[in-house]
């Protein structure tokens, strides 16, 4: 293994973040280069906050983050060029066409226009957006916007890809395609942090799974290690166990009983 490859892609050291309440408590996580990490947790567990710290969207936090061995705070501009980020909600300049948007993003990375044109065309073709290349995105569906967002995140060939619920709004074919893309990126030695609630996808694409609860890492290991640790087979059961959810209880029945009481809606 070369010296460069020995340097972890991401190192999170004692990172804490608070707003009105603590969101992350002393998170420690090392992600070696070329690995796909499934980062899972319930709503409000701190997943998105971690990703926002890693993308530079949040800069005020305690602790240290190293990207490719360098302090992220000190070398932020340089390190951001190594990262591709797919956020959960498709925020785009909707008055632009996909190609105009990609040219703008490419420009921020100082990419050659011809390269942007070629890569952009090919990637959007793969997502089935050939017809829409020069249409304004304000008429696009959520899924179409998400496809443009994924393309723009991968356009500059980043070393590290941070995905926050990347499947949001995608159709079945695009989900399959994205899973294949993740496989391709992994083969190409890219590091991926994959945040999602969709357990079966996380299970399939991840080398290692990190489970976060109330801002603390509760589990960190391969799927087989987690199975052995929890004594159960599926990731859903492991998740329920580690997040303290009682799966034996009939929550569905409880829910329906709300409507059956006198004065209910049904």
């Amino acid at each position, binding site marked *: 293994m070369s010296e460069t490859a020995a340097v972890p892609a991401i190192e999170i050291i004692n990172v804490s973040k608070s*707003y*009105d309440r603590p*969101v992350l408590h002393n998170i420690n996580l090392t992600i070696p280069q070329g690995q796909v990490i499934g980062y899972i947790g319930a709503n409000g567990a701190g997943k*998105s*906050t971690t990703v*926002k710290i890693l*993308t*530079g*969207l*949040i*800069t*005020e936090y305690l602790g240290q983050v190293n990207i490719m061995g360098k302090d992220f705070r000190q070398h932020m*501009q*340089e390190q*951001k*060029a190594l*990262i591709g*980020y797919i*956020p959960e*909600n498709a*925020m*785009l*300049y909707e*008055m*632009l066409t996909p190609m*105009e948007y990609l040219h*703008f*993003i490419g*420009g*921020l*990375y*100082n990419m050659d226009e011809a390269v942007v044109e070629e890569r952009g065309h090919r990637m959007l073709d793969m997502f089935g957006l050939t017809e829409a290349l020069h249409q*304004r995105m304000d008429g696009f569906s959520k899924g179409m916007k998400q496809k443009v967002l994924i393309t723009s995140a991968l356009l500059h060939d980043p070393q590290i890809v941070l995905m926050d619920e990347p499947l949001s709004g995608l159709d079945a074919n695009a989900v399959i395609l994205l899973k294949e893309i993740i496989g391709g990126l992994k083969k190409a030695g890219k590091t991926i942090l994959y945040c999602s609630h969709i357990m079966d996808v996380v299970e399939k694409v991840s080398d290692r799974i990190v489970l976060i609860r109330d801002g603390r890492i509760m589990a960190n290991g391969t799927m087989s290690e987690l199975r052995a640790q929890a004594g159960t087979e599926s990731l859903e059961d492991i998740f329920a166990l580690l997040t303290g959810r009682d799966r034996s209880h009939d929550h569905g029945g409880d829910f329906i009983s709300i409507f059956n009481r006198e004065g209910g809606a049904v």
Partner: protein
Amino acid sequence: MDRIFLALVKLLSPFWTLSGADSRQLLLILKLKTTLSNREPISWRAGGSKKQYNLHPVLRSLLHMLLPALLGLTYVPLLLIIPDKEIGLLLVTFSYFLFAALMLVMTFSSQLTDTSDNSILLPRPVNSRTMILYRLLFMGYKFLTSAIPLSFAMIIALSIRDGWLRGLHYLALLLPGLTILFAAVQLLLILVLRFVSGQRFKKIVYWLQAIFIGWIYLSMQHSFMDKLESANLSVVLRYSRLLSWMPQYWITEAWMHKATWRMHLALWGSPVISLLFIVRVLAPKFSERLSEMGSGFETAAKGRTREARSTRAKQKHYLLLRHPAAQAGFLFARRFASRTTEYKMMVLPAYAYVIFTAFPLLSDIWKVISTGEGSIKAAKCLLPVYMLMYPVTAALMSIKASAQYKAAWVYETAPGSFRGHVRLGTGWALFTRYYFPAFLAWSVVLLIATRGALWSNLILMACNCIAVYFVQVLVLFKEMPASVSAESLKEEKSQRFFTTILVLALTALVGVLHAFLLLPLYWWVHLLVASLSLIAAWLLWDKIARTQ
């Protein structure tokens, strides 16, 4: 216009690089921002269907300049009436800068901390200095394209009186003056942002706006203007040394060819120094705050506020509303208006504009009350009551949009015929929040000051305003509250402008009819017309409740 702006930015690339920004990225982002601004649709309502027309950029620029250019006409009489050229110009420049500052604080302050594209730009390798500089330059450009047309009438008047070169000279001096004003306001906001958390900044800007309204009032009350009108400049300077520190004074002196080298240096040098200070020193902290503001976490209400809210929620007064949907609309509007800072920031400027416009008319109100002739006294006293319709119109126009979410689906998916009731409840909530308290306060003051002489006129006026307001609800407020995205509301700026003008014209028409036809009549005529207005209001109330 955009091309000239971009060419100028490109020309000054070495300066941006010197200030630590990436001039290539800067130009790229500004190009994008101007493109986006040009692509915002301008829409009119035609026959109930929304038609959108994308205007040619030149036509769009002209349309954008029209209103400030018309407003600028108000400065011309001042300039021409005052015989002393120097005093006249100083007076007009003061007034002009006051309005420009008002525009800057009220309209542009929220743009500084716009976090809508944080998730696009912040994860990219764009440095903090580029981030702050692109905002300043784009806002500055937009500000100047509003503020410069405001001076057109003055420049034309100066050109006619003193020759076109003198007119152009004044324009050339205004540019650095406005840049100083712009830089000073931004510097203040960015300094505030440095010392408070990003989450609290919006609230502080809201309070700054409120303070600014008070400051406008006080500065007009104690301004140099009345002193300027009656004295020569040396007397004024003796009165206040502060004047010699103001760009308005430097501009006037430079135009009169009396400026010292220090004034020239200050006029041309301070914008550059302020810009460099903001970009080189304050930028990194600004970026931190900006990222924090866009993080999606809002400060929760403090314990006492939460308690007060829960108590208020228990005491549900719906002020004559009976239908549950109307009560729901009423409660929603009350809560939305009291808890949404962005919304307050949209409504509050309307009060400032009312004060700014009403003050010259009301500056001698106490003298008129004590000694004035009956009908003039009454007309002057009652004028603000009609003018206060503007804030409530602004509140009504803004409540349909929400920055946080689009609630259209709530109304689309719920069963039953309730839309009219929701609109009615919402409209009523805004009227009782933004009109009634101001009306009651002013009425009490007037009744005491005039020893009850205007009671019947006040009742008539209140009834007229209720009727006019319900016309507004019926005509302007067809969307459900919070059902439109904030971006869409921005796109409808022009449409809002024309409809607002029409509705305000209706208010003005009612006011004029009242002042000229009804004001001198007997109290029982006032009450008779008031009851007719109330019947109209009741019919409109019913009509709104039934609309779908």
